[in-house]
C-alpha cells in the first residue's frame, strides 16, 4: 500500500523490490552443498523474522537458530516469585514493563496477582516509576528492572536522579543481565554448532561492536550486528554469507544508522556509576553463569530492593517436562518442546518464552507453527 507519508527509517527498509533483490543475492551466495546454521541472538530478531515471514525468503539450507537474547525468558521463576513477594507487602506499588505482566511465577503472573488485589502497574520506563514515587510519598514504589545492557542505562539514570533528589520511597529489584557471557555459554556448549551470528542490535547501541571481537578472533565465527527491519536482517545474512564464502571471520555493523562502533559512552558511564557485576547469576536453562548480571553497588544500597526487603530467595526449578533451557540455547526449536501448544500456550504459559515479546516460543506460536498445515503456499 502506498502510504501518504512514508515512515522514516521503517518504509525504506521494507521496500519489496529491495527485499526481493537481497533475497536473490542470498540464493546466489549460499553454497547449495552446505548447510548453514546462523544464530540470531536477540529475541527481537526472532520476532521480526517470523512476523515478516523472512524465513520464507531464505533458501532451505540456511537454518536460523534462536538464541537466548530474551531478558525476561532467562529469568528463573524464583526471581519472579521474589519480586512478587515484595508486591504483596502493604503500601508497595510494583512496577514493571508490560512484557513482565503475564510471565508465570509459582503463584501466578503479575497480572494474576493484580487481579487478586496487589498494586501492580505497567510503566513504559523507570522514569515513570520514579514519577509514581514522587506522586505517592506515603507508598513505596518498586521497579522490577529487566533487560540486557539495552535498558540498564535508563535504570541507572533513574537511580542517579532518585539519589540526587533524595527520593527514598523508591527501590529497584535488579535483574539486568549482560549479553557476552550468554554468548560465551552458547559457544562453550558441546551441543552447539553455529556457523555465524546475527548480532543483537539494541544491546549494541550501548556496548558497541568491540565486545564481540573475541567471537571472530578466538572462535572464528563471523558476526554482523543487525537492525530489525526485513531489509536489515536479510542484508546481515548477505554479509555473513560473504564472510563465510571468503573464509573470513570479523565483526561487521549493519545497523550503522543506530549503533556506534564504540557504543554509548555516557550510558556506559552511568552504568558504572550505579551497578556492580554479580559474581554469578542463575539463568533459566543455562545454570549459574559468572559475572553475567548486574546489581546495585554499595553507593545505591538504599535503593536496592533486595537489601530493603528480605525475599525468599528460593530456587525454583522449571517443571521437568519444560524444555525452556534447550530452546533458549537453540538446541531445540520451540515446536520440539513436548509442552509446546498443549500444556504451554500464550494464554496458559509454563515458561516465559511463551509470553515474552522476545520469546522464541511466543514468536513461533503466534506467527509460524500453524503454517505447517499448508499444503502449498501461493506463488
Amino acid at each position, binding site marked *: *500500500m502506498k*502510504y*501518504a*507519508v512514508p*515512515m522514516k527509517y*521503517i518504509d525504506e527498509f*521494507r521496500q*519489496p523490490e529491495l*527485499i*526481493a533483490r537481497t*533475497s536473490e543475492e542470498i540464493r546466489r551466495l549460499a553454497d547449495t552443498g552446505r548447510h548453514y546454521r546462523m544464530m540470531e541472538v536477540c529475541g527481537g530478531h526472532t520476532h521480526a523474522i*517470523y*512476523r*515478516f*515471514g*523472512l*524465513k*520464507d*525468503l531464505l533458501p532451505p539450507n540456511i537454518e536460523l537458530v534462536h538464541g537466548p537474547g530474551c531478558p525476561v525468558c532467562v529469568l528463573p521463576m524464583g526471581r519472579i516469585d521474589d519480586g512478587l513477594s515484595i508486591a504483596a507487602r502493604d503500601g508497595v506499588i510494583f512496577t514493571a514493563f*508490560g512484557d513482565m505482566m*503475564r510471565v508465570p511465577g509459582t503463584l501466578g503472573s503479575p*497480572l*494474576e496477582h493484580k*487481579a*487478586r488485589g496487589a498494586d501492580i502497574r505497567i510503566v*513504559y520506563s523507570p522514569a515513570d516509576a520514579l514519577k509514581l514515587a514522587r506522586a505517592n510519598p506515603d507508598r513505596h514504589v518498586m521497579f522490577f528492572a529487566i533487560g540486557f545492557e539495552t535498558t540498564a542505562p535508563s535504570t541507572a539514570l533513574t537511580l542517579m536522579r532518585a539519589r540526587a533528589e533524595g527520593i527514598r520511597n523508591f527501590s529497584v529489584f535488579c535483574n539486568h543481565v549482560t549479553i557476552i557471557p550468554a554468548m560465551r555459554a552458547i559457544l562453550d556448549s558441546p551441543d552447539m554448532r553455529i556457523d555465524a551470528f546475527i548480532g543483537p542490535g539494541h544491546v549494541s547501541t550501548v556496548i558497541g561492536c568491540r565486545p564481540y571481537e573475541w567471537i571472530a578472533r578466538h572462535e572464528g565465527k563471523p558476526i554482523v550486528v543487525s537492525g530489525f527491519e*526485513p531489509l536489515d536482517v536479510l542484508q546481515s545474512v548477505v554479509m555473513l554469507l560473504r564472510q563465510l564464502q571468503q573464509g573470513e571471520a570479523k565483526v561487521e555493523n549493519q545497523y550503522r544508522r543506530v549503533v556506534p562502533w564504540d557504543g554509548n559512552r555516557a550510558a556506559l558511564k552511568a552504568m558504572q556509576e550505579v551497578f556492580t557485576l554479580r559474581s554469578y547469576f542463575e539463568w533459566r536453562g543455562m545454570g549459574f553463569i559468572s559475572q553475567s548480571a548486574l546489581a546495585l553497588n554499595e553507593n545505591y544500597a538504599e535503593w536496592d530492593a533486595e537489601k530493603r526487603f528480605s525475599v525468599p530467595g528460593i530456587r525454583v526449578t522449571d517443571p521437568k517436562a519444560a524444555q525452556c533451557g534447550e530452546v533458549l540455547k537453540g538446541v531445540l526449536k520451540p515446536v520440539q518442546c513436548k509442552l509446546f501448544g498443549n500444556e504451554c500456550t*500464550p*494464554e496458559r504459559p509454563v515458561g516465559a518464552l511463551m*509470553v515474552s*515479546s522476545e520469546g522464541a516460543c511466543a514468536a513461533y*506460536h*503466534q*506467527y*509460524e*507453527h*500453524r*503454517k505447517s*498445515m*499448508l*499444503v502449498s*503456499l*501461493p506463488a
Partner: protein
Amino acid sequence: MVAASPKIRFRDAQIEMAHGAGGKASRRLIEGLFAPILFGSSPEPLGDAAHISLNGTRIAITADSFVVSPLSFPGGSIGELAVNGTVNDLAVSGARAEALVVTYVLEAGLPTDVLEAEVRAMGRAAGAAGVKIAGGDTKVVEHGKADRMYITTAGVGRPIPGIHCSAGSARPGDVILVSGPIGDHGITILLARGELDLEADLCSDTRPVLGMVEALAAAVAPGLRWMRDPTRGGVATALNEFARDCGLGVYLFEDRVPVRDAVRGACELLGLDPLHIANEGQFLAVVAPEYAEAALEALQRTPGGHESRMIGEVREQPACAVLGLTPYGGTRIVDMLVGDPLPRIC
C-alpha cells in the same frame, strides 16, 4: 459446512482483564461458561445479534455494555459509542435498528454536567442513526464502585430483506472487504489516556455503519455471506472467528489493509499490531467473488465508505486460521488477540 467447535470448559479460577479483551480468553469464557449454561446445545455459531421469531415475525436483538476510559476522547464519547455499537451489531447481523433501551450505572460523585453531556451525546447519536431510545434504567453505586459510569444498551431491529448471512455459507474464492482504515478507535483511546507522551492527529472512528450495510445489501444481497464489526480484538480476531466458524482459511493481503499513518506510527512505537486494535465504525464483509467488484463499488459510493478495500480471500487452507501475506512474498499466521494490550477500550 460448519466445523465442529471443540467443547471448551472454562477452567480458570478467577476472571482476569484478558477475559474482557475480545480475544482468545473472552471466547473461552463465553464458549466455556456462558454458552453451555445459557444457550444449551445450539449448533449455531455465536454472532453479533440474535435473530428470533416473535409470533411469526423475525426480529433481531442484541445487547452491549460500554466501560470505556476516558469517557470522552477525540471523535466521540461513551454516549455515542453506546448507540453506534449496538446499531452496528444489529447492522452486521443483517438488521436495521429500530429501538434501544439503555441502562446507566453511575458512580456517586459523578458531576452532573458530565452525565448530561453523555446523555446529550447519546441523544444526538440516536438521531443521527435513525433509532429511537425507548426507555432505560439508572442505578447509582458508591464512590469507587463504578469508574464514573458504565452504560449498557440493548437494541431490537428488523431484518433487512435479502440478507442471509452465516459463516457456513462461505466458500473458497470468496472475497473479504473492509469498510475503511483500521485501528483509529483503539489508538485514539490509548493516546487519550495520557499515560504516554505521544500525540497524533487522530480521532475515534465511531459511527453507524448501517448505511453502508444497506448499500451492500441493495447491490449484492444474494452474494453477501457474512459480516462482522471488528471491535475488541480487532480485524485479526474477527477473521479468526470467521475462519473457525466456517472451517476454511483466510488469506489476508497485508499491504491492502488500510491503516492511517498515525495509527501505524503509534503501533510501530508501541509494538502493537493494527490488526488487533479495536474499531468502532468499520465492518468486514465476505462476498461471493462474482459480486466482489459490485460490492466494493457500492461501498465506495456510499457516504463514509470511500476508503473501503478488498483485503483478502477465503481459501481451503489453512483451515480455521488466517494467513497474512507480507508485501515481499513471506507469510505469517495472523492470530487472535492474546492478553489485553489496551483494556477498557469500548
